[in-house]
């Protein structure tokens, strides 16, 4: 898989670690990025605030170069992505404006370019299964608020790779990395964008509301795919804490940084120490907690296996006891000593003809009942029918033991 690559201006400056981790992400997942030849700035907000034609011509010059490569063009920055998608939309749907753009550029446009975002590539073009397969250090126990902001999901007719109100692509990627993607309500609310710089009286409350909702929803960090969102959430967080007198302490990461780290990279190689809110410590905490969780899970699995073995052995003993010591048991408990042959036959027939219904009677869990059905053979049917005719509880224990045995066998096969 190969893409034309439009890094955008901020990846040389404030978004430097986004560029570093983007290159690592491509290397790890095995896709190639070829930087667009002599690309120019998309004009960003200043462009579309000043002159419509110019704001379309600037990205269109890049699109003209990109369409000659025959590859889709990936733009890490959400604003660059939006400007190029917008120009693409106009070129494809507005012939009059397309002609004007061509006059400004003195170039003919085919309208065949396709600008894609990194989230689209990760979640839809590469897929979370392929990502999960590369994970060596899963981010288990990380509680991440996936923050999409505005321009990756809006306007819908220009973006369209994810839901505008409750997008999921980043959540899926984070889950593939082993993290917990928390539910929260501000995942597509505006961070204040340029307002935080030009009009802090407007921008700061907007930024504060995003940070506060992440915190209140149980997030321990925020994940983003936009350099301007990063700048605001990370660099301005200390100022916001001071202004609103509230400790937020939320490290912010690019999704590409976390992907590289979960796939074995040292945090330093993707520039984690360049963040303003201390971001290395939380990764250490997650590492320790992930190791603890792994150890606990392994211990629980071992205990469960031992218990199942014990239970199976006990069931066997009990079943054997039920047969040999039947008269004694009958005396002490008043049970029927010998299984009634007619009843045994009836259970055998029922188990053969209607295994699903009978399995449900023996095993409460639906999935486990299914397993029981799949492993019912003559020998097991005989044993279960015997026990059912004598003592239903014993039959249930034996059925559970069969299922556990099978699950264990399957587990060993997978290993």
């Amino acid at each position, binding site marked *: 898989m190969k893409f034309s690559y439009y890094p955008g201006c901020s990846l*040389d400056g404030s978004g430097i670690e986004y560029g570093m981790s983007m290159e690592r992400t491509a290397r790890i997942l095995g896709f190639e990025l070829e930087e667009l030849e002599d690309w120019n700035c998309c004009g960003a907000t*200043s462009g579309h605030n000043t002159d419509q034609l*110019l704001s379309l011509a600037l990205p269109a010059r890049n699109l003209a170069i990109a369409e000659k490569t025959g590859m889709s063009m990936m733009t890490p920055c959400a604003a660059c992505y939006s400007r190029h998608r917008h120009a693409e939309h106009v070129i494809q749907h507005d012939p009059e404006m397309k002609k004007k753009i061509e006059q400004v550029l003195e170039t003919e446009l085919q309208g065949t370019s396709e600008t894609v975002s990194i989230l689209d590539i990760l979640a839809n073009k590469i897929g979370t299964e392929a990502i999960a397969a590369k994970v060596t250090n899963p981010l288990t126990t990380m509680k991440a608020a996936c923050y999409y902001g505005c321009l990756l999901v809006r*306007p819908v007719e220009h973006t369209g790779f994810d839901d505008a109100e409750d997008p999921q692509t980043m959540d899926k990627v984070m889950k593939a990395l082993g993290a917990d993607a928390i539910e929260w309500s501000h995942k597509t*609310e505006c961070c204040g964008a340029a307002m935080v710089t030009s009009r802090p009286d407007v921008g700061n409350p907007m930024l504060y509301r995003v940070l506060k909702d992440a915190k209140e929803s149980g997030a321990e960090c925020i994940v983003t795919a936009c350099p301007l969102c990063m700048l605001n959430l990370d660099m301005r967080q200390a100022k916001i804490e001071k202004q609103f007198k509230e400790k937020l302490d939320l490290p912010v990461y690019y999704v590409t940084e976390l992907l590289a780290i979960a796939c074995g990279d040292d945090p330093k190689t993707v520039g984690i120490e360049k963040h303003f809110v201390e971001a290395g410590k939380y990764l250490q905490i997650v590492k320790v907690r992930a190791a603890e969780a792994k150890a606990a899970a392994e211990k629980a699995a071992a205990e469960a296996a031992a218990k199942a073995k014990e239970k199976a052995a006990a069931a066997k003993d009990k079943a054997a006891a039920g047969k040999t010591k039947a008269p004694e048991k009958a005396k002490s408990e008043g049970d029927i000593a010998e299984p009634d042959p007619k009843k045994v036959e009836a259970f055998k027939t029922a188990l053969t003809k209607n295994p699903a219904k009978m399995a449900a009677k023996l095993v409460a869990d639906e999935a486990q009942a299914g397993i029981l059905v799949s492993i019912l053979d003559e020998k097991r049917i005989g044993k279960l029918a015997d026990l059912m005719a004598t003592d239903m509880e014993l039959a249930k224990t034996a059925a559970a033991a069969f299922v556990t045995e099978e699950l264990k066998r399957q587990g060993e096969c997978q290993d």
Partner: protein
Amino acid sequence: MDMAIKLSPATEEQKKLLAKVEKEAGTSVNLCYQCGKCTAGCPAAFAMDYPPRQVIRLLQLGLIDQALRAESIWICASCETCSARCPRGVDIASLMDTMRRQALKQGKADKRVAAFNKAFLSNVKNFGKTFEAGLLLRYNLTTGQLFKDMELGLPMMIRGKVGVLPERIKAREEMKKIFERAEKLGGDE
């Protein structure tokens, strides 16, 4: 905010201007039935003199001069939430964008925003790319806020987040021509 507005029929000039704004924005204000969904979802409405719904109402009433003078158009962060949620398909964000450009032409723009945009685009015109450090310095100098965000400058440099020299593209002559031709062709309307 002055809620009482004296209504008088829009002049021919105002009607023409509104039609131009609607065409450029690719939307029609008469589609709006004033439900207020745009304002409800607007993250910046709390700071606006006329929230989005009222800006549209001003346009519907032909009061385009008031709309162009509204502080709201400079408070809009272009987050596109209004357009995404409008049940009538009015592209409010695009209208805000168009009105900002119109206000700029009429000299009604917020001076700080206008200064920033000018500095930004001059970067693009001369180098083909933006140069964040130089841009902020120039913005601070022209707006007389010399020490704005200064406390962030040094930490950014330490983190290697400030380029020392502007990056230049090869096609700088082409960039200048694009700017010139866009200005010439854009002014034809």
